[in-house]
């Protein structure tokens, strides 16, 4: 069986991991971090993803998409409250958000697919084989539409998504594998955009989820926003400046807010500093840990309610939890750790890298699916109750929240009127009494043979599969015939739309990540060739002639690679030049510093 990779498709950062002889490992590109910022930017050279796209957040805010995960499986109305915070333009078509980038509009699954393709490419470059299958993680509290959207993203990226697994459970797999823990654990996952809590029982290789809860709209982004709002208010007061009309500065404020927040995880105070527009100089402000805590306490408290509910639903008390595991970048905040420790009465574990553990767990699950790991098994649950609308707009629950998946329920339908040929069924997800207060998943019309009222008997089976995704089938109990059901998702892409997007993603080769990789590598190679030639001209006399010759050889090798179409070969030749020209760089710096630093060598300076 071909290799299956594990992917953590995060709000802020995404990673890909694989199983290396029984040990999960994250994949990082040459000299780069394993984390790929979940950012997509439209530039003159086409669409770019990751670190280079992040650069465009302030330079090109209207064309740089970040935190797209917040929009997966959502309609515009769902996110109305926060639209003002996003510099890019959102519209809606067919119940699905569209993000405008230049001339074209993209659905959130399409944007996510670009991130997935980048990860796929990294994995392919690293493993030296083509990758077509993946396990992708989602927040445990994601509903059916959000899961389906994630699966769509995978398909658009050219990946067969063999399994959607929950982020906290993935973390538990990685944790359990490493620590060989037995007992009850709570996984508290606070990332960039989402919060999850899962309670699991670990026993002899079985990872049984007892309960899960969360908030798919609560994460580090919200902390950043609070700090940014504080800065914006003060800037308005002190300078009479309203930055909301300057998208680039809005982004700069948000990024500086995040940096200040991160620094305050290690320090007790920090200074934030921002360039202002219209020649108003710089805004600087000291922020203390206490101030940050005061700002964030309400958000942190919001995570505790779901924690208590999850513990209660698992039939336990907080004190019954043997271990608490922290996942997600935002759990580095001291306030979060304090509150979690106070709730469970235990010091939480944070030995595993909270950024990587979800991707590692996805790789473990991938290995289980490919038959490599056979002693571990994850038994997960559905986070939300599933039901249908009945008379009077009430939701009748068919599968309760925290039911182990796969789970199924059958319901018998009949008619009220003679000759009635259809029954409309409205599927819902949520915990509220009334249909209108829950999430509408889909509607469909059950076909019924025209008979006297009450005679038809159609049995509908609602099955939640191991991905937490709903499948519906119907059977006429009189004839034994099954009917296929065409479901129109309330907030999702239709099958045809996904098909078209898959085609699009192949058709526009210029948008294609691999083509873009090559373009970027060539550009960078061009720049390196120019600067190195110039250095040789300026400082060639400072080094041995043998070294000059070596640099020249490396230069012509790069020039040749640049004409080829293998970005990896280009990068390798670039690394050769950097190596060969090291002596030249040092010699030139030494030379130019000679007067200023009487006698001191660059090597001394850099060491001190």
């Amino acid at each position, binding site marked *: 069986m071909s290799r299956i990779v594990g992917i953590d498709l995060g709000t802020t950062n995404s990673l890909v991991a694989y199983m290396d002889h029984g040990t999960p490992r994250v994949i990082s590109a040459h000299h780069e971090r394993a984390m790929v910022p979940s950012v997509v930017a439209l530039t003159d050279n086409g669409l770019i993803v990751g670190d280079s796209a992040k650069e465009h957040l302030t330079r090109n805010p209207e064309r740089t998409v970040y935190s797209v995960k917040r929009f997966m499986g959502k309609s515009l109305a769902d996110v109305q409250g926060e639209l003002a915070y996003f510099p890019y333009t959102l519209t809606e078509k067919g119940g699905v958000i569209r993000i405008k980038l230049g001339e074209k509009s993209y659905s959130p699954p399409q944007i996510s697919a670009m991130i997935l393709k980048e990860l796929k490419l990294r994995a392919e470059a690293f493993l030296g084989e083509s990758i077509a299958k993946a396990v992708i993680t989602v927040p445990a509290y994601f509903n059916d539409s959000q899961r389906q959207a994630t699966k769509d993203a995978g398909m658009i990226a050219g990946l067969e998504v063999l399994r959607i697994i929950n982020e906290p459970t993935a973390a538990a797999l990685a944790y359990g594998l490493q620590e060989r823990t037995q007992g009850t654990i709570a996984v508290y996952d606070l990332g960039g955009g989402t919060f999850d809590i899962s309670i699991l029982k670990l026993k002899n290789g079985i990872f049984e989820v007892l309960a899960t809860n969360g908030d798919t709209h609560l994460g580090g982004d919200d902390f950043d926003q609070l700090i940014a709002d504080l800065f914006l208010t003060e800037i308005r007061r002190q300078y009479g400046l309203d930055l909301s009309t300057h998208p680039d500065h809005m982004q700069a404020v948000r990024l500086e807010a995040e940096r200040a927040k991160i620094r305050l995880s290690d320090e007790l105070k920090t200074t934030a500093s921002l360039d202002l527009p219209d020649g108003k100089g710089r805004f600087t402000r000291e922020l203390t840990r206490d101030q940050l805590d005061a700002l964030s306490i309400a958000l942190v408290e919001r995570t505790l309610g779901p924690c208590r509910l999850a513990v209660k639903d698992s039939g336990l008390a907080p004190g019954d939890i043997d271990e608490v595991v922290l996942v997600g970048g935002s759990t580095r905040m001291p306030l979060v750790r304090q509150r979690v420790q106070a709730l469970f009465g235990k010091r939480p574990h944070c030995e595993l890298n909270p950024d990587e553990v979800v991707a590692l767990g996805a790789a473990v699950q991938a290995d289980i699916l490919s*038959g490599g790991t056979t002693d571990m*098994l994850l038994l997960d649950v559905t986070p939300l109750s599933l039901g249908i609308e009945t008379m009077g707009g009430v939701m009748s629950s068919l599968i309760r929240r925290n039911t182990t998946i796969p789970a199924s329920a*059958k319901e018998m339908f009949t008619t*009220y009127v003679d000759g009635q040929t259809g029954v409309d069924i409205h599927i819902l997800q949520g915990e509220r009494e009334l249909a209108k207060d829950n999430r509408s998943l889909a509607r469909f019309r059950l076909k019924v043979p025209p008979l006297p009222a009450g005679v038809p008997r159609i049995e509908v089976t609602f099955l939640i599969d*191991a991905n937490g995704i709903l499948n519906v089938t119907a059977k006429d109990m009189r004839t034994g015939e099954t009917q296929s059901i065409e479901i129109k998702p309330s907030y999702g892409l239709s099958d045809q739309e996904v098909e078209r997007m898959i085609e699009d993603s192949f058709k526009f080769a210029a948008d294609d990540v691999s083509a873009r990789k090559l373009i970027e590598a060539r550009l960078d190679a061009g720049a390196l060739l120019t600067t190195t030639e110039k250095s040789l001209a300026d400082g060639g006399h400072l080094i041995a002639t043998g070294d000059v010759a070596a640099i020249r050889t490396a230069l012509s090798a790069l020039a040749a690679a640049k004409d080829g179409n293998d970005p990896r070969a280009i990068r390798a030749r670039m690394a050769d030049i950097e190596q060969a020209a090291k002596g030249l760089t040092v010699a030139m710096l030494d030379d130019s510093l000679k007067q200023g630093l009487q006698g001191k060598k660059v090597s001394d300076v850099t060491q001190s």
Partner: protein
Amino acid sequence: MSGHIHNTDDRRELQMARSMCWHCQSEMAGEYFCDRCVKVQPVSKDLDYFTCFGLPRRLALDPQTLETKFYELSRAFHPDFYQNKSDAEQTISLGNSAMLNTAYRTLRDPIQRAEYLLDLEAGSVKDIRTTPPADLFEEILELQDTLDEFRASDRASESASTLRTKLHADRATLEQRQRDMEAQLQQLFGRWDALQNRGETTEQARAERGRILKDMRDILSNRTYVKNIVNDLVATIA
């Protein structure tokens, strides 16, 4: 509008006896896997949950044994282990896993277990009570009035706080009542198991079984009724 009938009774469906392997057509002797071709077999809809777990039809049940068996069967059926198998096997694995999960959920909880057994033994659809049990009639009508009054009151007012105190007391009474019923149930469970263990087939034993089942059904539906009232009460005063 959807007209749906609750509680489809699976067992009453006509079901082809599963005596042949769906794959190699050989006579089935193994439980869930064909002895010859080792392919997984769909769990028959006629199989009751007790039999599925290899347990006798009793109301006392060791949770540890149940869990061990659940994990064992999960390892046998879970879709994770069928990723490389044929579509037919994947479908069977999915169906079996869903069935197994329902079975485990039902048997794990003593109340659901009893309701299920009642259903198996007496073929009854769950008895849903719509009026208060006789011995609680007065109390519950009064409670409903207090609840209505409380809902209509200004929460900050003095009268609301008096009502709240009263409701808390009512809650304690009802919860005690619920516990009493659960204790009665425990006793009935014990009597049922003992009777089954003796395995008598006399007319007398049959009559006794019928009485126990009837008592169980009454107490179960009273308990559900009281539990719903308590939930409503808790939601109102929260």
